[in-house]
């Protein structure tokens, strides 16, 4: 399972989230915390690079990237699919 810390480290690269990345809880909405559309795209690309996965089209949505928990679940499912 992908750890929340691994996600927080990547969130810390986003300009708006950097100062608070360590304190965001797993279920807080990242868009409410200042993540914007382009930020979410950069987040998506950073996650793909870090975990060596590719998000399929149907997961390229705001919902997939809205909380640390949803990101962990999405990325984990992709990592497992790769490993299987």
């Amino acid at each position, binding site marked *: 399972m992908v750890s929340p810390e691994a996600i927080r480290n990547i969130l810390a690269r986003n300009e708006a989230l950097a100062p608070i990345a360590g304190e965001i809880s797993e279920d807080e909405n990242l868009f409410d915390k200042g993540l914007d*559309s382009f930020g*979410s*795209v950069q987040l*998506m690309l950073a996650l793909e690079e870090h975990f060596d996965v590719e998000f399929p*089209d149907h997961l*390229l*949505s*705001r*919902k997939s990237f809205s909380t640390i928990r949803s990101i962990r679940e999405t990325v984990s499912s992709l990592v497992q699919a790769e490993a299987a």
Partner: protein
Amino acid sequence: MESLASAPTFCEPLDDDGLSEPTFLDRLFDQGLLVRTGVDGLYGRSGAFESVVEALDRLIGRLGAADNAEVLRFPPGMSRPAFERSGYLKGFPNLAGTVHSFCGHEGEHAKLLACVEAGEDWTAGQKATDIVLTPAACYPLYPVAAARGALPAEGRLFDLQSYCFRREPSLEPTRMQLFRMREYVRMGSPDQVLAFRESWLERGTQMIRDLALPLAIDAANDPFFGRAGRMLANNQRAQGLKFELNVPVNSVEKPTACLSFNYHQDHFGTTWGLTQADGSVAHTACVGFGLERITLALLRHHGLDLAAWPEAVRRVLWG
């Protein structure tokens, strides 16, 4: 790009099979309404065509007159630094058009002429200028509005019209590379700009009905570039940020967006430091009218002879 040859037909027994019958674009050329230039999507317009564009422009002005929008007109080129800051390149690098110019000395001039003479590429030495072709009528407006300082409590409303450029060569006459867009742009609180968009959804629908054209309002997304763009497009749809008023012109299955209703949230407010009276970031929305596209829709549905258009439609346009 879907070819016109496979486009389904409607509203008249026009068989665009590419063999026996001319396409809609061919008929526009044959009738002299559009003029070939040798570049797909770059056309001259006849007096008759322009008379419709101008009538639509006036009609849209009448529909919005009560709102007292501030009229501004920009040329079809905008400042490159402003264009870069707008974020357009994040979403649409493939559609942008930059203006390049010869900046060399006499020796390079001779080389350039020699290249032209030899039919070789003479553009290698052209340098990007500080002008970019305007991609949408509202892009030059935001920095100008932000430079005035915070919005008044009632927000602001602007009336724009400009030739716009998008590099997407096509044989669909509705997809021109240089075309005119009339826009109203609202800046203010989320409530103010959403109310504006709502009112134009109604007015725009009524306008197209009055022109006796079939229409549908659909959730839409901008043609963002690449895989990252797929995500932006999905988000835009999921959040209901963009609607289009579609009229079948080339085909029923792929109708043409003639009006678009866009809620940018705080994108341009944040980008340009545009604030509301209370200091919070301004939200913006715009309604865009594709003047050539509406004209083409009228020609497609009412025929290429303007004098033969339904009397009610002519009255709406020309009184």
